[in-house]
């Protein structure tokens, strides 16, 4: 039997046949995702044997996981660092620059105020600011991962992005709350 060309243990960049970098051609990722799912999705195997159905589910699950990981900049950054053997220490490293933490506190207070007076405009403005800050951190991460290869500093940027992701989640919850 021929040796398998692709297996379930390969890293996501290999599975999607994309270069291992933070900068990513998202159109190519979307296209590969669809091509892969067209081959492995359980709907293509429902009339085949149990063995093929089981494999198909494992593969489709893996492809979905890879797509989610590569599509999202924070997950992609974290994943690249893991491949480089760097732990992002998001659970235990809370050493953040003072100005960053002050800024976070300010935004969070702004969020609470917007919720308490049900101010949708303020919420929109805050969401905008958070998006802007997220984008600039992503650019910094791209630089650190792809150009200067400063992986430890990149882990710090990932931790900052995690803060902003939490903020974005809270903003989304706030929209839900103001909606009801």
């Amino acid at each position: 039997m021929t040796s398998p060309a692709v297996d379930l243990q390969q890293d996501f960049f290999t599975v999607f046949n994309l270069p291992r970098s933070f900068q990513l051609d998202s159109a190519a990722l979307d296209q590969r995702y669809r091509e892969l799912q067209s081959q492995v999705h359980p709907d293509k195997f429902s009339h085949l044997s149990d063995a093929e159905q089981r494999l198909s589910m494992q593969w489709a699950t893996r492809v979905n996981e890879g797509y989610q990981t590569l599509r999202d900049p924070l997950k992609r950054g974290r994943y690249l660092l893991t491949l480089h053997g760097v732990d992002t220490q998001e659970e235990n490293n809370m050493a953040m620059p003072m100005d960053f933490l002050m800024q976070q506190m300010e935004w969070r207070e702004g969020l609470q105020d917007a919720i308490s007076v049900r101010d949708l405009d303020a919420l929109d403005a805050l969401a905008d600011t958070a998006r802007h800050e997220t984008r600039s951190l992503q650019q910094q991460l791209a630089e650190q991962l792809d150009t200067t290869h400063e992986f430890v500093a990149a882990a710090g940027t990932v931790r900052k992005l995690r803060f902003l992701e939490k903020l974005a989640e809270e903003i989304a919850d706030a929209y839900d709350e103001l909606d009801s």
Partner: protein
Amino acid sequence: MALLQISEPGLSAAPHQHRLAIGIDLGTTNSLVATVRNGISVVLNEDDGSALLPSVVRYLADGSTQVGLAAQAVQSEDPQNTIVSVKRFMGRGLKDVGDVVDLPYRFVDTPGMLQLRTAAGVKSPVEVSAEILKVLRDRAERSLGGELVGAVITVPAYFDDAQRQATKDAARLAGLNVLRLLNEPTAAAIAYGLDNASEGVYAVYDLGGGTFDISILRLSKGVFEVLATNGDSALGGDDFDQRIYCWILEQAGLSQLGVNDVRLLLTHARTAKEQLTDNLQAQITAVLSGGELVDVTLTRETFYDMTRNLLARTLQPTRKALRDAGLSVDEVQGVVMVGGSTRMPQVQRAVAEYFKQTPLTNLDPDKVVALGAAIQANVLAGNRSADDWLLLDVIPLSLGLETMGGLTEKVIPRNSTIPTARAQEFTTYKDGQTAMSIHVVQGERELVSDCRSLARFELRGIPPMVAGAARIRVTFQVDADGLLSVSAREMTTGHESSIAVKPSYGLTDEEITQMLKDSAQHAKDDMQARALREQQVEARQLLEAVEAALQEDGDLLDADGKAVIRASMEGVRFLLEGEDQAAIKRAVEALNQATLPFAQARMDKSVSGALKGHKMSDLES
């Protein structure tokens, strides 16, 4: 002994054999069945020409049942034994079902899912639904004149795991091979998308008899990708009836009605609702069991006023779904209306206002879900269609675990594309702890008590260690039906113990078999004959599938590999001549086992094939 059939190389043994598959819309109010015939999806009618089967089941004292129109006709006379809108009870406990006082049933509060006491004994919503499905299965078998390969059953997109599991159990109990549970809005999108060859972002607004779904989909190059879904699995046309019913009571100064009168007035309320679609007012005239006359006039305007907040309850999930999809209203190219309740003019107006466009209503909102389900069933059964499309759906509600303090830890977030899996590691908090209890919940709320409890299980046999040393990996797997299975594994010791967990409300295969046996005691031989036939069909399908795979990819195997599979195939073929169901089953299992490495090789080939023609250099240039 049959002659050996030898087929042309490169062709499967039966290349043009059409496999019979059906799509079933198991609705709150009506159910129907459709199939693809000569490349076109059609609804299968009853002999009298009717397509919609009222989802009403009546149980009689002799143990027999009436389903559909016959049951509907007597619902006011025999309300306690005539179950309507049973879909609302699927996978639900008594406390989950609101307004129980207004319903004429004798509920039995059983753990997990409620049950109903009828003249024919205590019945679960799964059994009641199975009666409806059996009628549709018979209709399909008569109409198509052959053994069904399987069925796609639709479920509201917002159904949680318990409701999905209950639906699948009902289908199995009705003797159907479930090819897939398909979300209703997605089914509708298939019916629409293939007709109109549309590209872009679509919203499907599905207001049925008892459920509301909103799905946001992106259609592009033959891929249906559900971006987000939301809804309310206890909101539908029934609630509009209920509003009118309450209004009648108020107008007529009535209270404390008997069950028969409640059902009578609810029926009148429904008729009035339907009349108001085309008329400006509806006359409601009824004589109650005590002789009192009810005679009131309901105007369209009054009806709109009393149902305004029901409409608002559909727009809130709509906004959430759009937000989850990261889209604004302006980016939605079209809105598809599904479900009989979208016939109400105020619903169409509210949707048009919100989306700033006229919704699409060119397919019959009652039939579009079944039509789409049939198209998907046809593909899943292995009948190749000209347009090969792919359907990527999501789970509607987050899955999580209970952590310290009764809080939920989300493990798989809502709107994750399925199939999906996620593993989470846990550890012990006491020295020498050997067991751990795991509680799986579904929902968006922070407190476990506000989410739906899916399963509780104990993981035992953890080797005694100091606190925090054991590593227990819990894996959640959601399959393409949106159904969850959980397994847990202790990682520190060399030996890994693994248990598969089935949520507590689901039925085991043994229970299904037992129920099937019980329900057919007087037709035992029939049952065995059926089981044998089904086993034979399954075996033939497997043989065909393996044969086709060998024709296509036989070169992936060496001579030994081929010989092993051929031998197992011969085993199945030989036993197929006989009538020993258990033996056929064992042979099928053996063949499945023998094809494992071959399946692996084929999958590798498919995956590499998908990436062929793309080189790293293409991307860098």
